[in-house]
């Protein structure tokens, strides 16, 4: 993909040696690497020089207070917002993500908080909305149902029929459909924005199991959530944002609730250049 200047403000950011040094990593090139990402809305500094990366077979949680910049960063990955400055690389190639369609072409699938599903359509139709499969003569419904069943099986979901209209499904099942939809078109990176908000415990359990499945399928998952229990349960790495800046990167399996809460609330400050690189 060529680098496109979407608007005049997009500039390339030049790094000092120290920051480039953090790119050295043991497990090959990351699926997604964002360096020095900056975004301003008028006087609001949404993101200031944020670094972020996701590897294959990894769940990275993005946590922070309201307004810390989590969703802004996610929207950039999804192609909804363009950064004012900074580098984005996907699988080692520098890219810009000017639109959601471009994000999809680059292998990024996103589930936003409102899920964006159609109540009146069935599960299959929702999965293939806007990218229906076509046979020789007409729409290939049988093939779409087969793929839908296959994807739901991959997630070990509890949706009984692929022909059930969305309006008959519970909140948890809808979340499942939204996650399943991301798997159509074989993505490499899945962005989940607050997937467990407003779900019952049993539905949360199912969604968390789905996230583990996505990871086992070798995808890179970006998980945005306020629930520290859910975040620590399924993620490998936790990236803390505070006032639009990186405030620490933590190994989820060895970091306590307290350390993460401290970073979110600003009780501790991560020093640049001391970030752990997995």
């Amino acid at each position, binding site marked *: 993909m060529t680098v496109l200047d979407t608007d005049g403000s997009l500039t390339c950011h030049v790094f000092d040696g120290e920051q480039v040094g953090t790119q050295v990593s043991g497990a090959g090139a990351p699926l997604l690497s964002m360096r020095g990402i900056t975004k301003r809305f008028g006087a609001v500094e949404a993101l200031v020089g944020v670094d972020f990366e996701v590897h294959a077979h990894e769940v990275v949680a993005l946590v922070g207070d309201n307004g810390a910049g989590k969703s802004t960063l996610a929207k950039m990955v999804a192609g909804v917002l363009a950064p004012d400055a900074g580098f984005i690389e996907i699988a080692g190639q520098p890219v810009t993500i000017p639109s959601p369609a471009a994000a999809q072409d680059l292998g990024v699938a996103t589930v936003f908080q409102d899920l964006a599903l159609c109540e009146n359509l069935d599960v299959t139709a929702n999965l293939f909305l806007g990218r229906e499969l076509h046979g020789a003569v007409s729409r290939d419904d049988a093939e779409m149902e087969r793929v839908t069943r296959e994807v739901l099986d991959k997630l070990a979901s509890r949706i009984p029929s692929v022909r059930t209209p969305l309006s008959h499904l519970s909140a948890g099942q809808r979340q499942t459909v939204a996650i399943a939809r991301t798997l159509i078109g074989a993505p490499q990176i899945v962005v989940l924005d607050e997937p467990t908000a407003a779900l019952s415990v049993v539905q949360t359990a199912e969604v968390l199991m789905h996230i583990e499945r996505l990871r086992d399928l070798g995808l890179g998952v970006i998980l945005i959530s306020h629930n520290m*229990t859910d975040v620590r*349960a*399924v993620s490998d790495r936790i990236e803390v944002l505070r006032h639009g800046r990186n405030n620490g990167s933590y190994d989820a399996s060895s970091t306590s*609730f307290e350390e993460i809460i401290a970073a979110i609330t600003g009780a501790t400050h991560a020093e640049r250049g001391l970030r752990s690189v997995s």
Partner: protein
Amino acid sequence: MTRKAAAGSQTSLREANKALVLETVQHWGGLTQVELAAATGLSQATVSTIVRELLGVGVVETAVTTRSGRRAQLVTVARRMGLAVGIQVSHRQLRIVLGDFGHTVLAEQTLPLPNEHRLDTSLDRAALLVVDLLERMGSTLDEVVGIGVGVPAPVDVDTGMISVRGLMRGWDDVHLGHTLSKRLACPVSVDNDANLGALAESTLGAGRAYRDSVFVRASYGTGAGVVIGGRVHRGYAGTAGEIGHVQVDPLGDICRCGNRGCLDTVVGASALVEPLRASLGALALRDVVQRARDGDPGCARVIADAGAQIGAVVAGLGMAVNPQVVIVGGELAETGEVLLGPMREAISRRVLINQIAPLEVVPAALGSRAEVMGALLLALQTADVPVRVDIEEEKVG
């Protein structure tokens, strides 16, 4: 539904219809006969005949209910006197099963848990999961005769408290059973997870044919459950079989329990993951298990060495107990012979070979479900059954 089209003879059609009705009842938990006819596409007369047949063989139960003001016949899968709940709290997962007295699992759910999960959050989530699962089956807490809970630490069964401090951070000094039973208003029994695995395997699994067996749980930590004469031997304070805290390295690291060089410091989750960090990067324990299954030599090596080390300690237990079989469960056992091969060798090299019943080392027949099934069995076994039967009979009469 297209199933009923698959008709050869009249009999196969009837069989297929019967299966369809039962499947539908199972799926929805409970349906009236009218609803059942609508859901299956069968005629009311056919549904009525099939339900009568299924009722005759005790597969379903019927009860009188009302739907839109009319009397209706509610059909449910026979719950044989009540339901029980099994809960397994492990280091990174909460597993829950709902089952009946026929040991049939009616619903189950797994919830991933964070490392060092908190007592209050986890018990709260467990309680909510139980209620959610019951609701999914169209049932309520009134039907639950008991709840069994397994935790990865020795438990004093009488008080339902963890009997050794420091093994589960933040879980000490709490009456786990009491806390949950107050919340859910039914009797709760608590036990060690390896003991529950031993109970399940000796009742339903690989230990059924033997009077004396040992269940080894190789997971984030290691434990064992000892069955003597068909009964789980827990010891006075529930620490029997805690092989994870047998010293294997006098110069080793300090364990959570305060002693030095315990087996868990050598084969616990972090001890297995750390040596792989340099070559394979940061892995979770389940990654190591998965990769060992897929044939990654480094991961297989780590699991195999753990098998040998656990085997050496199990051999000591084997000398003390003289079981006929060692049953191996827990996450590491999912690698099959990668773990079991070296473990078997280490055990057989150390125990006295007797001519009458050479010690066997086999995988858990219930697989990763052994412990949670044990929790279900514990709940069923400690439930006050006779009283329930009286109530049921009164209701019927």
